[in-house]
């Protein structure tokens, strides 16, 4: 009897743990969904491939949650996972035709009349300019734009705060030259 009661208690405990995990997962997705979508867009211009990337991030987050022991903040955890999946996506996929031309297009269009910036134009150009940055600068700039501190960015990427500052500075210079009059 004692053994059966123990097993029942364990099963009940496992069900409670699972419910708590599901609630935590839902909360994290709700709170960070938009950031995940933006981060995915910064690494994948093609909408259908982007959906795949978002699914990969969501799955990785679900798999990582049971092992999360609060070593970092939940936000850092989400960005670490999202970022790691985005990089994996980057090296596993073939580059889509026309993708390399994106940077050239931004540069060509920056002094045309249409570059008289409306908010929508800036948003679109900014996303394209971010995609045109080298990965080392892109990863830092995306997190800066998300509003993470240099300390948090260092925690996500595994680099020092000084290194983050240097890269952020270079990334902003490149963004300025890509966006030109829009800023």
């Amino acid at each position: 009897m004692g053994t059966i009661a123990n097993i029942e208690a364990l099963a009940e405990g496992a069900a409670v743990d699972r419910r708590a995990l599901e609630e935590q997962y839902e909360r994290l997705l709700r709170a960070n969904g938009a950031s995940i979508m933006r981060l995915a867009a910064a690494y994948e211009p093609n909408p259908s491939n982007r959906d795949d990337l978002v699914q990969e991030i969501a799955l990785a987050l679900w798999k990582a949650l049971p092992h999360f022991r609060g070593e970092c903040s939940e936000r850092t955890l989400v960005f670490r996972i999202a970022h790691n999946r985005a990089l994996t996506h980057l090296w596993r996929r073939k580059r889509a035709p026309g993708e390399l031309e994106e940077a050239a297009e931004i540069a060509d269009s920056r002094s045309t009349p249409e570059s008289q910036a409306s908010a929508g134009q800036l948003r679109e150009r900014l996303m394209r300019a971010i995609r045109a940055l080298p990965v080392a600068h892109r990863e830092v700039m995306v997190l800066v734009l998300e509003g993470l501190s240099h300390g948090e960015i260092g925690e996500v990427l595994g680099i020092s705060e000084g290194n983050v500052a240097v890269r952020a500075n270079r990334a902003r210079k490149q963004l300025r030259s890509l966006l030109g009059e829009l800023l």
Partner: protein
Amino acid sequence: MSDARELDVLQAAWHQNGEPVPAGLQKLVGRQTLFLRLGAAAEILVSVTFLGGSFWLAVTQREPEFVALAAGIWIVTLAAAIYSFQNRTGTWRPAALDTRAFLELSLRRCRASLRAVTFGLYLLLVEVVLLAGWHAWYWAGHPPAPGMAVWLTASCLPAVFLIALLLFRSRKRRELTRLEALHRELN
């Protein structure tokens, strides 16, 4: 424009991109988790079927040919399992590592996959030689041997495995090249 103002403008523009995550994403993740579990269960099922089936054959048939076949299957399967376990040492870590650590881990995993493919190629060669030898031995004592059409059909299976392994190796090599380039770029 001052640096702080410029950053405000950029952040405001960036946050306008805030689409919500697609509806039904959690259900999809639940389904993918189920598929992953089914995949792992299928691997175990195939191993158990081969090991159990060969053992059952050796016990029920009690002929030296079947005992030798069962021993061969067990040795090859155990060799593959031991190699796989050793090869994966250091590649089992949670996904929530910082990016630099994750890249190092990914490099190790990619190299481990390539080593596993090389091992798989040798293992396939050993299996083909062992199975060909076993068939020659078995059919010498149990005539009539099957015709050429049966032998040709049977030889398609290792050929398919060989092609799959070579394709996988070529994909992994491409991935490793891109991964090393990314690693250099980020360090």
